[in-house]
C-alpha cells in the first residue's frame, strides 16, 4: 500500500536549512505502514532535500561550501527574461545548488518507524527563499 502526505513550509531566508525529521517520522506513524520505505521528495527546483547531522555548525559549513561552489554573481545563462513566467530568471544559484543537493531521500520503515542512523536528520534546504515550499512524504509497504 502507499500513503502520501504533503507538507507545506514557509521558508524565511534566501538560504535556509529546515529540519523536517520529525514531520517525516510523524507521517510514517500516521500511515499505518509497518514495513517498507519512505520517500521524501521536494516539489521544486531551487531547493533540495538532504540528510546530514543536525548541527548548526554542519549547516554552516554546508552553506559555505555551496556558496563557494555556486557564487551569487557569475555569468549564468539563466539570467534573462522568461516568457513563460513573465519574469526574469535570476535564481540560477538556487537551481544549481538544488541540482547538487538532490530533490529527495529514502529511508527504510521497520515496525512502523523510520530507521535512521544516529546522526541522520532530514533537511529541506532553501536556496531561493523566502517561499512557500511543498514536500511530499510517500510511505510504501505493508501494514
Amino acid at each position, binding site marked *: 500500500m502507499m500513503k502520501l502526505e504533503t507538507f507545506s513550509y514557509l521558508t524565511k531566508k534566501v538560504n535556509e536549512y529546515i529540519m523536517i525529521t520529525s514531520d517525516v517520522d510523524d507521517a510514517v506513524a500516521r500511515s499505518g505502514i509497518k514495513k517498507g520505505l519512505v520517500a521524501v521528495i521536494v516539489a521544486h527546483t531551487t531547493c533540495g532535500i538532504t540528510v546530514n547531522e543536525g548541527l548548526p555548525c554542519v549547516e554552516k559549513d554546508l552553506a559555505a561550501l555551496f556558496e563557494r561552489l555556486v557564487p551569487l554573481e557569475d555569468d549564468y545563462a539563466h539570467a534573462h527574461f522568461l516568457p513563460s*513566467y513573465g*519574469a526574469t530568471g535570476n535564481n540560477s544559484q538556487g537551481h544549481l545548488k538544488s541540482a547538487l543537493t538532490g530533490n529527495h531521500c529514502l529511508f527504510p520503515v521497520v515496525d512502523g518507524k523510520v530507521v535512521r542512523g544516529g546522526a541522520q536528520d532530514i533537511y529541506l534546504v532553501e536556496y531561493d527563499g*523566502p517561499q512557500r515550499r511543498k514536500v511530499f512524504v510517500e510511505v510504501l509497504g505493508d501494514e
Partner: protein
Amino acid sequence: MVIDMNVHPVCYKAIYDEDEFHRNERVFGFGLMGPQDYDEIFTEMAVGGVDKKVLHPMDLTTTEGCWVVTNEEAYKIVCDHPDRFINFASVDPHRPDAPEVLEAAFEVLNAKGLYLHPAKQRFYAYEACMESIYQICERYHKPIMFDAGLSWEPNTPTKYNHPLAIEEAIMSHPDIRMCLAHFAWPWVREMVMLMIKYPNAYTDTSVLYLDSPEESMRRLFTEDMGPLWFQRSFMHQVMFASNTPRFRSFKIRRGVEALGLPQDARDALLGGNALTFLGEDDAR
C-alpha cells in the same frame, strides 16, 4: 522607511479568485506562479527590508473588458494591513464615467494616487480625454504613476509608453508629480532629459529585463547614465520599486545596495523620494 512603489497584487491570496487569476495570467502576462498569503508576502518584505508596498490595480474596461485587480480589491488589502500597503487607483481613460470612477477611488477608497498604463489602456497621455483626469488629480493633490517603456503585458504597443508621449502632460501639469515607471527603459536618456527639465517628473528602479539584479542596476546607474548623474542631478526623483510579481523586491534591493551609493542618495532612493511623491513629506 523603504517603500516599494510598483507592485501588482495579482498573486495576493486575499483577493484570490481562481477564474480571475487564470484570466489575469493571460491578460497581465505571467505564469507558473501561485497565490501568496500575507505570511509569505511579509516574510519576503522582511528579507528585502521593505516597509511598505504601493499596490496598483488596472482598469481595462474598454480594452480587455475586465480589471486586473480592482480599486476595491487594492483597498481591501490596505484595510487588512494599513501599515504595510498603500493603494493607488486605476481608471480606464476611455470609459465614459472615468471621472466618476476616479473621484470615487479618491473619496471612498482613499487611494493615494493614480496608476495608468498608456500601452495597455491604449491612450496617449496628451489626449483630450485626459484633461479631466489630470484636473481631478490636481484637485485632490494626487500623484500619477504611468507605466512607461517596455511592458511585457500582451497587447501593449510601446508607442503609447514612450516617455516623449508623456512629456506634455508633465509639462502642462507642474503641480502633479508624475512617475514614469521602469526608468522608461529602454529610453533611459529620454527619462533623464525629462527629470532635468521637469522637477515633477519621477521614475523608479523596476528594471530587470536583462541580466542579474546587480548587473542590471550597475548598467542603469553607471553605463546607461553617467556614474554620478543620479547623485548630482536628480537624486530626489528616482524611487525604489520592483514591479512585483515580475521582479522580486529583495533582489532589486540587492542590486541597488551593490551600487554603493552615498547614504543620502541611498536613503532618498529607497524611501525618501517616495514619501515626497506621495505627498507625505511636505518639508522636502
